[in-house]
């Protein structure tokens, strides 16, 4: 890592952490994993009125040294049954891929993921089984809870 680059990304992430803690947004949070500021653990709560309500999901956030010019790599570490999340926890969300912009930050990402839970994009599913089941909320919810609690897809 180039020294100035390291300093820059560190400064940026420190600011983000501060803002995130001060904002205190209900239902989303994130914190560096250890001394390494490039690796965070995030948590999102399923929003009321969605099948994910009452469930909490952990995420891993890995920041590249040229963040925010390149998007962080984000994965669910809690098993998540969702049309746009695969069994490994990989996420298909446009703002983390080809629509990434350096104006986004950890807060906007977490809020986007929280709303993705309740509003999947069923046109480009990573989990086709989940996409097909989306229209049967009761069955879907059972699956969500089972996978969340057991980790067995």
């Amino acid at each position, binding site marked *: 890592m*180039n020294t*100035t*680059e390291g300093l*820059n*990304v560190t400064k*940026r992430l420190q600011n983000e952490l501060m*803002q995130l803690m001060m904002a205190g947004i209900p239902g989303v949070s994130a914190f560096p994993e250890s001394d390494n500021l490039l690796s965070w653990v995030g948590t999102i709560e399923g929003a009321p009125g969605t099948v994910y309500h009452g469930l909490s999901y952990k995420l891993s956030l890995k920041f590249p040294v*040229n963040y925010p*010019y*390149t998007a962080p790599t984000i994965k669910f570490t809690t098993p998540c049954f969702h049309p746009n999340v695969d069994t490994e926890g990989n996420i298909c969300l*446009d703002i983390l891929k*080809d*629509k*990434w*912009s*350096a*104006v986004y*930050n950890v807060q906007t990402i977490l809020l986007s993921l929280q709303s993705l839970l309740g509003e999947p994009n069923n046109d480009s599913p990573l989990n086709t089984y989940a996409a097909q089941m989306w229209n049967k909320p009761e069955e879907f919810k059972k699956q969500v809870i089972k996978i969340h609690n057991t980790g067995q897809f």
Partner: protein
Amino acid sequence: MDSPKSPTENEINYGNLSDDTIIDYETLIKEEEEQRPLVSEYDDISNYKVNYIDSEIFSKKIDQLKKTCKGYRSVRKDGNCFYRSFSYKYFELYNKNPSSKWSKEMKKIGENTINVLTSANFEKETIEDFYEFFMDSYDEKKFKEASFTDDYTSNGIVFYLRLICSAELKLNHEKYEMFLEEPLESFIAKQVEPLGRDVDNVQIMAIVNALKVCINIAYLDSTDYDVNWIKFGEEYQKDPSSPVINLLFTPGHYDMLYRDNE
């Protein structure tokens, strides 16, 4: 310096390329490119090289350029070449004579961009860092020592220009929408704001209108015609002596060009 030799055109069998080979080759090109400086030293125009244009046509065109141009600077080929070339030339012209009428006007417009951006719904806190990198370049010392030597700072400037472009497209959408093949919002999200996306004429027009500068681009392509010059924002060149950003286009890439009178 010993570096792995990249395959030349003759060595590649285009019929048998697998996806993996293409990806490997692209990665190799990308890695080699990342070793190059963001902006190279000034060099004489006769040393300008392009490897994929028919050499006879190309050298004829370089000869034409020599009549009015003396030199060039190359920028890294990373999809940000237009923004990088433009901003380098823009700040270089500014720092050459910060007290000129043109420079004072440029800085005033530059300073105001943060207000323009917030009026286009960008949150001030999320763009302040990039604005700072951009404004720092109006300082000669910072321009020389950081703006285009440090990747992080330079990408910040490139990104800020992309935001200026994005705000101009949003605020004056009626001027640009007719040139777009997709909805404005999706064009901005996919083609303007992400780093590494090339420009089209629409983005060039938006930058020109937002910063009120004149850009003159020499097009060096493989056609058998004379070098084609296209001026964007001629109305912003208030008198013939006021600075113009001269750029050199070869298919897929922009570099900087220096005319004899610069």
